[in-house]
């Protein structure tokens, strides 16, 4: 060979910059995700003073009856919730995507309402209905709401939209030609449903089940408010860490909490791989035809579900204006005078808004640019694979576990980053990392719709990569970028479990204030704060919808034929 041995293609400055930036992203994920989780893992094998004790903590865990019971409780409530939610969500999604029932946009909007609220909101509504002073208490036939009954009812409401959203996506990607082929082969409706519709949605069904199961196992807000003396894993971690300051046992429970989440995640990945290639690129969208025998029952079902969802949200809203439930039902704004109930007052809502806005701003920019470099940077070496792996992890890590990992990692005396603890910055970092995967996947999906040769064309025309990024990639992906922004904001506003360990005296988020006010027995004030969170999110979502049309006209004119 002419240059005798080593063969080094020259790297352009752009490529070098790209590699540097991707290295920065990898460092960020290392500090904000891998190291804290690694430290959580390490702490599970240490005693309080940091000495290595092997599996002693795990042995103690197994030997402590209350802890083992909490694991079992988490599992069976999650399984039962999944069994209740997935069929209902499937029917709802089927009606939205495969029928010609009227009012679909309304049903879709109502379905999204619980996503915008903290998980505590349905729990508070149930307290109004079935609590010790509830108006429908008799329906429980002497059973107490506080326990598995309340947990499962609240989780069903909270998880429903998440499952329905996934199933809507799975069902809307149908290839009309498959149905025409099946009909041409004289298959009956039942047979078509069993042989075309269900297999086509199988991946979505598994995903939905996995998401619901994981949400229930790892949710902290609902069992905290409505769980009573019924121990589950999420509340047990909190008790170990915040109540007994037993960080090592907290780490053990955190790892146990990670197990079902990781298992569910792997199952989902497996199902996705098996699903591959069902839809071809040339699929013809399915246009359902009107059929009253199908559309009317579905309309009835959706009306019932939507009414229940509205009832729950409306009840919480109404309760927040009630003077003294259930004895004095006159309306008042007193419950919104948060200074009376919580030292942070309205400040906690402002903290939440700032945290959510920063997480959304920084997160959207960071996640989109990293996704673009990951997809289009053509950076050589192992770096892209490292980043790809790290971005997938947050989906499998419950917010509570990530928060726990953060408190252990950033609060440790040796950590030079310890100054972050209790600041707004750590809340922002935590929210951003916690919701990273979903946003990364959305960004990647948007970027993959662009021709893979755009960057090559730019290079051949001697146009710098960043020009093509700003002139072509960004405008085309703007709708997806807005979606990511709204997703980050709304979730950061509503999350409890990701931040419950991390706030400081000056940085208590509104969702934590809800938990505190409920703990202090001020149900109406807690409901008021939950409603305030919901209203902020609804306002942002409405702004998004109003803007989306404009943005569409402005950046997507080229889509018109």
């Amino acid at each position, binding site marked *: 060979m002419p240059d005798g041995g080593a063969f080094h293609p*020259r790297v352009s400055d752009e490529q070098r910059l790209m590699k540097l930036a991707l290295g920065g992203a990898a460092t960020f994920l290392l500090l904000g995700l891998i190291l804290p989780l690694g430290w959580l893992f390490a702490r599970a094998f240490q005693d309080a003073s940091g000495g290595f004790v092997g599996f002693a903590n795990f042995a103690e865990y197994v030997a402590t009856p209350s802890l083992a019971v909490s694991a079992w409780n988490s599992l069976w409530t999650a399984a039962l919730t999944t069994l209740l939610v997935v069929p209902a969500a499937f029917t709802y999604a089927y009606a939205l995507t495969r029928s010609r029932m009227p009012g679909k946009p309304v049903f879709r909007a109502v379905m999204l309402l619980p996503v915008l609220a903290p998980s505590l909101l349905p729990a508070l509504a149930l307290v109004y209905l079935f609590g010790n002073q509830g108006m429908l208490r008799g329906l429980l036939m002497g059973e107490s709401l506080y326990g598995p009954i309340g947990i499962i009812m609240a989780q069903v409401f909270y998880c429903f939209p998440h499952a329905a959203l996934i199933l809507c996506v799975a069902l809307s990607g149908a290839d009309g030609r498959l149905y025409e082929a099946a009909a041409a082969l004289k298959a009956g409706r039942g047979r078509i449903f069993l042989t075309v519709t269900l297999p086509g949605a199988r991946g979505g069904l598994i995903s939905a089940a996995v998401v619901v199961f994981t949400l229930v196992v790892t949710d902290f807000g609902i069992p905290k408010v409505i769980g009573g003396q019924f121990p589950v894993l999420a509340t047990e971690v909190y008790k170990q860490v915040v109540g007994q300051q037993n960080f090592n046992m907290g780490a053990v429970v955190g790892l146990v909490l990670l197990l079902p989440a990781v298992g569910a995640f792997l199952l989902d990945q497996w199902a996705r791989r098996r699903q591959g290639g069902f839809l071809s690129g040339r699929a013809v969208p399915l246009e359902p035809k009107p059929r009253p025998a199908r559309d009317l029952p579905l309309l009835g079902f959706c009306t019932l579900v939507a009414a229940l969802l509205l009832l729950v949200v409306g009840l919480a809203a109404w309760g927040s204006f009630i003077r003294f439930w259930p004895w004095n039902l006159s309306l008042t704004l007193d419950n919104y005078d948060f200074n009376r109930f919580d030292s942070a007052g309205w400040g906690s809502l402002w903290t939440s808004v700032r945290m959510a806005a920063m997480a959304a701003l920084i997160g959207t920019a960071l996640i989109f640019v990293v996704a673009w470099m990951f997809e289009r940077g053509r950076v050589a070496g192992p770096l892209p694979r490292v980043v790809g792996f790290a971005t997938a992890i947050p989906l499998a890590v419950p917010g509570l576990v990530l928060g726990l990992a953060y408190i252990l990692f950033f609060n440790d005396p040796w950590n030079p980053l310890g100054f972050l603890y209790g600041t707004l910055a750590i809340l922002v970092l935590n929210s951003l990392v916690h919701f990273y995967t979903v946003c990364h996947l959305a960004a990647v999906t948007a970027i993959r719709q662009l021709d893979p040769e755009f960057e090559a064309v730019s290079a051949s025309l001697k146009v710098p990569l960043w020009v093509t990024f700003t002139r072509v990639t960004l405008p085309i992906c703007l709708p997806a970028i807005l979606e990511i922004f709204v997703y980050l904001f709304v979730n950061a506003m509503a999350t409890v479990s990701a931040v419950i360990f991390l706030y400081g005296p000056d940085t208590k988020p509104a969702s934590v204030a809800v938990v505190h006010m409920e703990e202090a027995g001020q149900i109406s004030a807690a409901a008021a704060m939950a409603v305030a969170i919901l209203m902020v999110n609804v306002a942002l979502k409405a702004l998004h919808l109003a803007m989306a049309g404009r943005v569409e006209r402005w950046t997507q004119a080229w889509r018109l034929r």
Partner: protein
Amino acid sequence: MDLAARAVAAGIYLTVQDVTKRFGRFVALDRVSLDIREGEFVSFLGPSGCGKTTLLRAIAGLDPPSEGRIVQAGRDITHLPPGERDFGIVFQSYALFPNLDMRANIGYGLRGPAWPRAKAAARVEQLIAMVGLEEHARKYPAQLSGGQQQRVALARALANHPGLLLLDEPLSALDATVRARLRTEIRALQKALGVTTIMVTHDQEEALSVSDRIVVMREGRIEQIGTPEEVYRRPASAFVAGFVGRTGSFRAEVEHPHAATPRLRAGPVSLAATAAASLSPGEAARAFIRPEDVRLGDDALGHEGAFQAVVTGVEFLGPVCRVHLLAEGVALEAELPSGDIGKLGLGHTARLWVAVPAERIMTYPDA
């Protein structure tokens, strides 16, 4: 004198020397070498997956080779990133920017100090006129037909006067009639501009009709480099004979290779074949015969070594008909003007005389 200087002296614009490309263990290009002269139109032709695109991308610097050297206009560009090379490229998908209208697409690379606004605008109008799309300048790519999109991509690639034009299956997404028209347009434009051009294609008719020279590739290696005439008339290997142009082929055994007229024997049929001289007696061979070289009926009777065959089928192709023949186990195809079918009385199972000129039988050792 080093490689680059020698190449320039010989009027060679682009030299690819011993280029190898590996994807992991898989060898996509295996020591590929070729020279392209200034202003030449060269096609890379081969079946799908043979490495044509990989070679093109190596030349463009998009996927640098694992080994070897590439010299363009006297400059070793092997290690240069694509942005520092001098080429325009049209991809199979065109890769037009969907959110920019046609003007913005064509003028995309016309920026920086070399292209003040007025000069760039004038150049864009010139290019639009060159590809004949004046009425559509305000449209977005999605509003253009496939053929129009193709021309926009071509204009964009040529905007900055590149020294080398690379086309990766530029016509494969179009329907047959548009394809035939556009390929002559591309060739005329290339001739007028004198730009050295490489076109990747898997369509042998396309390659034959527009190229100065054709590079026939197979499994990461070059099988033959030659003019369309050479590649068609004197294929360097059995693969090229079978891939380029339509041929009938059969196995045969070499007889008397050193006689004045060497012969091939296939079953009871024995044919005079000049090309068999290069093989050894008794060697197994594969013979290829172009349909237009087969003489039928009275034409055949005049030839030495004419034999009888049965018609097994006739395909009507418009101006010509293709006749499938079987002579004692040897299958042949012949092509003749449609008008002659009636004259010869060619029905199914008709028997007739067949002959092939000895110099038109292409013979290769049977692998």
